[in-house]
């Protein structure tokens, strides 16, 4: 298609005087306008990096490598980011561990098991998860879910106390608002995107390959293991990375249910903090280096999500291109 339009452009360029003159100014300025709007994406991304880094510079200069310190004490002017980086990693991993198997399961259900007319309503329902705003997940999480699940945490914690590894992760103290609660809520929120991207990738597996496996007498599961999985592995990894990018940047739900205490603790059922949550909760009362440190956390978050997204999109695009060529 693009070849045709470019040919058109070339033809217009070669057209005799009268025609070319008629296509002059309006046409040209519309093209520049459209190009400007396209470039806006790049301009905004660069501006985000530049302006936020500028605002965060006093944190970077006063703390130096201390930005990765382990103590966040606003009264003592100690602004170490490690507790939040740790919390972000922990909640992100919990969210992925729960969301990925479920998402891939649903994606396989949609592509391999159910017929199209059943798949459509399932897609709608999964997409509804994405329609529920973050703040509503947070409201439900803190007022309904956390009070309910804290009893379960307490039972598990008292059962595993003293057990070597389990006690280390799931022991006392427990709290309804915790790393784990935040991880669960984030898992709900990233399931739709991981599902829909995995489904797109899995749908690109050539039908002939599937039929070939069935013709050899494979069961559906054997077909999935032998044909679908090797073909879509890479793309699914990309989808999972995009889900991770969502999970680490998701703010308001985490801010409400993570418990808001900047500690580095192995206890998943106890209160913690992560990067977006601390920015949301403390920005209002911050000034000076404090505010600069919070914006600096935003810079770290931005850098991290950009890297994840570039890698993930490259993987997804490559796997999508490969199957289109096949």
């Amino acid at each position, binding site marked *: *298609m693009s070849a045709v339009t470019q040919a058109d452009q070339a033809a217009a360029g070669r057209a005799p005087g009268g025609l070319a003159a008629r296509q002059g100014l309006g046409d040209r300025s519309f093209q520049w306008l459209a190009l400007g709007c396209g470039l806006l994406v790049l301009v905004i991304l660069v501006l985000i990096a530049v302006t936020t880094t500028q605002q965060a510079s006093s944190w970077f200069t006063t703390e130096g490598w201390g930005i990765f310190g382990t103590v966040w004490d606003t009264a003592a002017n100690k602004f170490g980011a490690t507790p939040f980086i740790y919390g972000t990693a922990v909640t992100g991993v919990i969210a992925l561990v729960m969301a990925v198997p479920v998402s891939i399961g649903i994606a396989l259900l949609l592509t391999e098991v159910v017929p199209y007319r059943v798949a459509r309503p399932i897609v709608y329902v999964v997409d509804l998860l994405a329609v529920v705003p*973050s703040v509503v997940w947070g409201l439900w999480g803190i007022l309904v879910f956390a009070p309910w699940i804290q009893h379960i945490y307490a039972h598990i914690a008292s059962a595993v106390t003293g057990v070597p590894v389990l006690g280390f992760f799931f022991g006392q103290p427990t709290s309804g608002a915790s790393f784990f609660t935040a991880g669960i809520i984030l898992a709900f929120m990233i399931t739709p995107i991981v599902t829909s991207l995995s489904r797109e990738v899995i749908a690109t597996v050539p039908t002939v390959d599937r039929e070939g496996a069935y013709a050899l007498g494979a069961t559906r599961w054997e077909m999935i293991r032998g044909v679908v999985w090797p073909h879509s592995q890479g793309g699914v990894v990309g989808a999972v990375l995009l889900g991770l990018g969502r999970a680490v940047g998701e703010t308001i739900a985490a801010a409400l249910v993570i418990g808001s205490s900047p500690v580095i603790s192995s206890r998943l059922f106890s209160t913690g903090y992560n990067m977006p949550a601390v920015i949301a909760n403390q920005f209002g009362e911050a000034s000076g280096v404090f505010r600069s440190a919070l914006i600096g956390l935003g810079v770290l978050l931005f850098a991290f999500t950009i890297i994840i997204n570039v890698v993930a999109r490259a993987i997804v695009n490559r796997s999508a291109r490969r199957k289109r060529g096949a």
Partner: protein
Amino acid sequence: MAVVTEAGQADLREPAGWRRTKNRIATVFMVISFVVVIIPLGFVLYTVIAKGASAISWSFLTSPIPVNVAPANVGGIGPAVLGTIEITALATVIAVPLGVLGAIYLNEYGGNNLLARFIGFMADVMTGVPSIVMGLFIFSIFVLHFGFSGLAGALALGCLMLPVVIRSTDEMLKLVPNSLREGSYALGASKARVTLTVVLPAAIGGIVSGALLAVARAAGETAPLLFTILTVTTANTNVFSGPNTSLPSQIFANATSPYTGAQARGWGAALTLIAIAFILMIAARFVTARFARYQR
């Protein structure tokens, strides 16, 4: 791999024993993963509707937000409804035209060249930028110089919507058959004219529906508004200056309140917000069904 069976009674369609069991287990796992998703979704929607429905009434949607501690039946969320409408509408007015023009560049002018592919790729990446970073960005570049305002909030939401609109419009423009473009060129129309009077109208259903979905997403965002509109309790009809408020920000404020009255208003606001998102989503579906000429 072939199943060895006794002659005569062989069931060629069903593999035997453990292979069949494994297959069953896998299928059951897939169904269970869907059920695991329905349960929390149903639970959330049920809670919001059950707790929100008792709060919602016309006066709830229009009354001022109580400043002091107040029981559930006093006051409402009028200023927040007003703020959400103002800010989301302004964000739409800013982001949709820019996004559509950007997509026109990608699809009509850029084609397959390096710059267009790079912009398309970065638009995808930009959809992954956390919303709170957009808030910090607008705070740094706008609020520090011009103060808090609905406009600042709209700019932050606009930054979130822009890549979404570009991507959805791009998809729709790709579906417009080339014969339409070629036919118009054959009649001597210029490229701008072809794009504006032939290509855009042909894709308008899909573009509007994509834009509505972007608006639905933006209307529920809280994080970009925290540092741009400075959540207040008073109504502000001037979206271009002065602090403002919105439904998501009010829910965020009420969720951390220990008072049952404030929590009840939070549930009411949550139901209002979800209702707005649903209406926009259904509208998008209607537009697609009714006006979209070319669908995927």
